[in-house]
Structures are given as structure tokens and as C-alpha cells.
């Protein structure tokens, strides 16, 4: 009798362990499929390739370790990128002061107007951005203060919604919007200066 019970119990245990292993394998595969996206975002959050690679590895190590804290059916991307951004913050990066955004009469129109000036206004507005070099974009993103950069990178490179970005960074959605707005403004300012050095 007792032998039969323990046999049934053992069977149940074995089944549970098998199910657990299957769930974990599926989880790990889904998380690994996101690796290219994770790397892209990490590469823009930190300055060097080496740092990005370290950050991605730490992210995956932690994700695999804490897989049970992921609730199946919820947003896996947001869950994973939250680990990434938290680790990036934990790496002891300094909180930077918000840059002094120069009061500009043109506000958000600065870059557009600058680029248009340099082309004599003849080029169409979809082509005018091509005057910016890829390096200028990369450099401008790298000089953004972290608070702004996190939001800009998550939304513009990671393609997250405001809501997801808010959840990932654990900040209110209004803060996401204001940081995004300011971050993009600083970005454009940097780009305008890179595009027209003599104008600064």
C-alpha cells in the first residue's frame, strides 16, 4: 500500500520535473531568439562593444537564473529588457545632470532649419537627413545623458511603446514622454552642431 502511494508520488514528481524542464527549455529558447534585439539596444545604451557584450551576457545569465519570476503569457520582451536596463543602472553609472538645453527660438525646428540652410532648401525633407553621417548619429546618441538615452533607445531602437518603456524603467508614462521629448531635442541639437560645426 505505502509502496504503491510512493510509486504514484514518484510518478507525479517525475511528471512535474519533466514539465518544468520543458517550460524552462521553451523559455530559454524564446529568450535567446531576442538576442539580436537585446544586443542592438545594449550597444546603444553603453559606449563600447565590449561593454555591450558584457551587459548582454549578464542579462542572459540573470534571465536564465530568474526564469521563474517570468509569468508566461506576459510581455517577455519587456521582462527581459527590464533586466537589461536595471543591470545597466546597477553597473554604477553616474547620474548625469540634465544638459542645459540651449534656449532656442526654433526649438525642435533647429536641426531641420540648419540642414535646410546647408542645402539651400532645395532638397526634399526626406533626403535632407542623409546629410548626417552614421557616425554623427552614433556619437550624438552616446552623448545623451543616461536618463534620456534609456528612453530614446527603448522607444526608437527597441521599438517599445511608451507604456512598455514606463514598465521597463519603472517610471510614470508622463516621465517617459517628457524624457523622450527632451532627449530627442538634445539629440537633434547635437546633430545640428555636428552637421554645421561653424554654426556653434
Amino acid at each position, binding site marked *: 500500500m505505502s509502496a504503491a502511494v510512493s510509486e504514484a508520488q514518484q510518478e507525479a514528481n517525475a511528471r512535474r520535473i519533466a514539465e518544468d*524542464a520543458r517550460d*524552462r*527549455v521553451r523559455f*530559454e529558447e524564446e529568450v*535567446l531568439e531576442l*538576442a*539580436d534585439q537585446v*544586443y*542592438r539596444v545594449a*550597444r*546603444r545604451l553603453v559606449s563600447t*562593444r565590449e561593454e555591450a*557584450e558584457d551587459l*548582454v*551576457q549578464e542579462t*542572459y*545569465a540573470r534571465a*536564465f537564473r530568474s526564469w521563474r519570476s517570468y509569468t508566461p503569457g506576459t510581455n517577455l520582451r519587456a521582462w527581459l529588457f527590464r533586466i537589461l536596463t536595471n543591470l545597466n543602472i546597477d553597473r554604477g553609472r553616474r547620474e548625469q545632470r540634465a544638459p542645459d538645453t540651449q534656449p532656442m527660438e*526654433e*526649438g*525642435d*525646428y533647429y*536641426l*531641420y532649419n540648419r540642414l535646410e540652410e546647408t542645402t539651400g532648401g532645395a532638397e*526634399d*525633407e*526626406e*533626403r*535632407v*537627413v*542623409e546629410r*548626417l553621417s*552614421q557616425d554623427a*548619429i*552614433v556619437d550624438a*546618441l552616446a552623448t545623451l545623458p543616461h536618463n534620456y538615452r534609456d528612453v530614446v533607445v527603448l*522607444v*526608437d*531602437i527597441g*521599438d517599445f*511603446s*511608451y507604456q512598455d518603456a514606463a514598465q521597463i524603467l519603472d517610471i510614470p508614462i508622463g516621465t517617459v*514622454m517628457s524624457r*523622450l*521629448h527632451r532627449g*530627442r531635442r538634445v*539629440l*537633434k541639437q547635437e546633430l545640428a552642431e555636428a552637421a554645421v560645426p561653424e554654426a556653434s
Partner: protein
Amino acid sequence: MDPCEKCEEVLQPFLDRELTESEYREAEAHLDDCSYCRKRYRFEASLRRYVRHAWIEGMSPELKAKLAALRTPL
């Protein structure tokens, strides 16, 4: 030409696809009427795409292998 205040207010969420249905229609109606905003919109949209696709080297195969190796052994 003076920057258009309406454009300023809705441009970012419009481009981020974060407006509600009715806000979106309102913004589109505004874009139809305002050539300055239309130009600005096209510029911002292409800048957004340009930033998104700014070159990033692909992840190295070594890193991919390292990540896979972090999986729990069966």
C-alpha cells in the same frame, strides 16, 4: 514661417503611434491643412528611421555561443 504649436503638441506621439483613434484623425486633418507641419512630419519621420537604422555591427557568433552556453544544462 512660425513653428506651428499644434504640430509641436502632436507630432511626437503621432510618429510614435501613441495617439488615440480620434486624436490621430485630428492630427491627420491638421497635416492635410498645414504644409509646414507636413514638411516637418516628413523630416521627423525620416530622421526617426535614420536613427533606428544607424549602423550597429551584428552580434558576434562568439557572443551568441556564450549566451547559449549560459542555459541551464538538462
